[in-house]
């Protein structure tokens, strides 16, 4: 008989005991440990998930802050750039203004200098011209020319209004000073007689004339009392010419300054005055 029933019963008992033992010693502890570990892992996982969510929220917050920061930085940068640009433009404008002012000042200085130079040049030119003319006339003048000048003077006296001559004579008569007749060269008697005749034609001869020689007159005759003078001399001509030239040049410079442009120096125009424009004073 292969089956021993006592052994069968014993083995059943043994097996049930083994089931109980393993349930106590093996399955229970191992399952509990596994469940505890799973629970802990789940808890850790949930914890990690929560921490991750918190971290993600914080990261999002940080990203937002960073974006905000970058935005504000950009704004600040743009503002600073704009300010710098405005400042630069301002500085450039100021520099340009200063430069313009300096240039204008320099230009004005230059113009003034040039004007002064031109004025001086013109004045010298006029003076020189007059001096040359004076010298030339002085060189040319002699007794013969003087005689012709006296003749001319006499003719002019004759042509002069009688009133003029009367006023001269009256002033001579009224004053204490005699009538002076000045000439560059000594007048001979004929010339003196002709002069007196022309002067006192139709008038009372008041007193004796005083003749003087004055080389400064260059050529010509001058008759003067205390407050009247009738003259026709080269010196007067030249003085008038010089005055005329200088006045003209001054006028030219004033015109140039008023027009604002620095005109090229005008060619010297010397208007020769006719003897009819002789000054009587």
């Amino acid at each position: 008989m292969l089956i021993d029933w006592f052994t069968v019963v014993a083995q059943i008992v043994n097996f049930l005991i083994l089931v109980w033992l393993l349930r106590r010693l093996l399955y229970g502890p191992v399952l509990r440990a596994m469940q505890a570990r799973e629970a802990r892992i789940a808890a850790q996982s949930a914890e990690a998930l929560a921490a991750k969510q918190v971290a993600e929220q914080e990261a999002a917050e940080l990203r937002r802050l960073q974006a905000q920061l970058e935005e504000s930085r950009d704004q600040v940068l743009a503002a600073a750039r704009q300010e710098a640009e405005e400042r630069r433009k301002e500085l450039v404008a100021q520099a340009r203004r200063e430069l313009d002012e300096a240039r204008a000042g320099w230009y004005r200085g230059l113009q003034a200098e040039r004007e002064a130079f031109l004025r001086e040049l013109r004045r010298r030119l006029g003076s020189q011209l007059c001096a040359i003319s004076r010298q030339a006339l002085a060189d040319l003048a002699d007794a013969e020319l003087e005689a012709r000048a006296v003749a001319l003077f006499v003719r002019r006296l004759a042509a002069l209004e009688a009133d003029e001559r009367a006023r001269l004579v009256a002033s001579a008569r009224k004053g204490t000073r005699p009538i002076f007749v000045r000439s560059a060269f000594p007048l001979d008697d004929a010339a003196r007689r002709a002069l007196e005749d022309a002067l006192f034609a139709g008038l009372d001869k008041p007193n004796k004339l005083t003749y003087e020689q004055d080389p400064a007159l260059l050529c010509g005759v001058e008759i003067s009392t205390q407050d009247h003078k009738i003259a026709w001399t080269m010196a007067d001509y030249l003085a008038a010419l010089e005055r005329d030239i200088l006045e003209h040049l001054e006028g030219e410079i004033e015109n140039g300054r008023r027009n604002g442009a620095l005109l090229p120096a005008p060619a010297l125009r010397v208007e020769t005055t006719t003897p009819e424009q002789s000054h009587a004073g």
Partner: protein
Amino acid sequence: MAIGPDELIYWQWGVVKLNATIVFTWVIMVIMAGGAWLITRKVTDAPTIGRGQNMLEAIVVLVRDQIREVSKQPPDRFLPFVGTLFLFIAMSNLLNIVPGFQAPTGSLSTTTALALCVFVAVPIYGISQQGWRAYLRQYLQPSVFMLPFNIIGELSRTLALAVRLFGNVMSGTMIVGVLISIAPLFFPVIMTAFGLLTGMIQAYIFAILAMVYIASATRAHSDSAEAPGETHAGAPATTGLHSSKES
């Protein structure tokens, strides 16, 4: 010639005797319970665990997964019974390679005892799950005329369970014994190694079949309780196929 460890009797008093089957069963029990106790007294739920605990957890997880796969039910109710079946048979067959060890599973008394345990456990699980009436009504399915055949099937499968395990283990031992007398050096080693494989497979088959029987007894209630068209409707057919394939 001794056909099993039952005949190796160390001590006898009347019908009470102490044969190799019982003694080596105790040896196995001591090894298993002692080993489990040694390891699980230091059990921990820390993330890092010892090798022993790792091994035990691997075994337990393996058995649970198999039970869950076969039964389609929460495995912890069946784990102590089915797991112990598997572990006891596997340990017994494994230690068979130790010289002088007499595997208790090589005894028809032991396999009969295990098969009787299954034979009793199936209605216990079934009744506890679905009650007397629902369990007993299974024997009347699909009609009353099938009652004798259902009862015969119940008995015969228990017999088959016992004889299959006994035959496999005993034959392995016998073959090694025969081969030792013929070719003492080389072939017994191969056959012992082969017997190791066979032993593991038999442990697996025994435990799985027990699980299938229990599952079929408990799942009938689940199926009838669930709404028609549920996915579990096809499960008995699957277990039937499984059972026929394994046996």
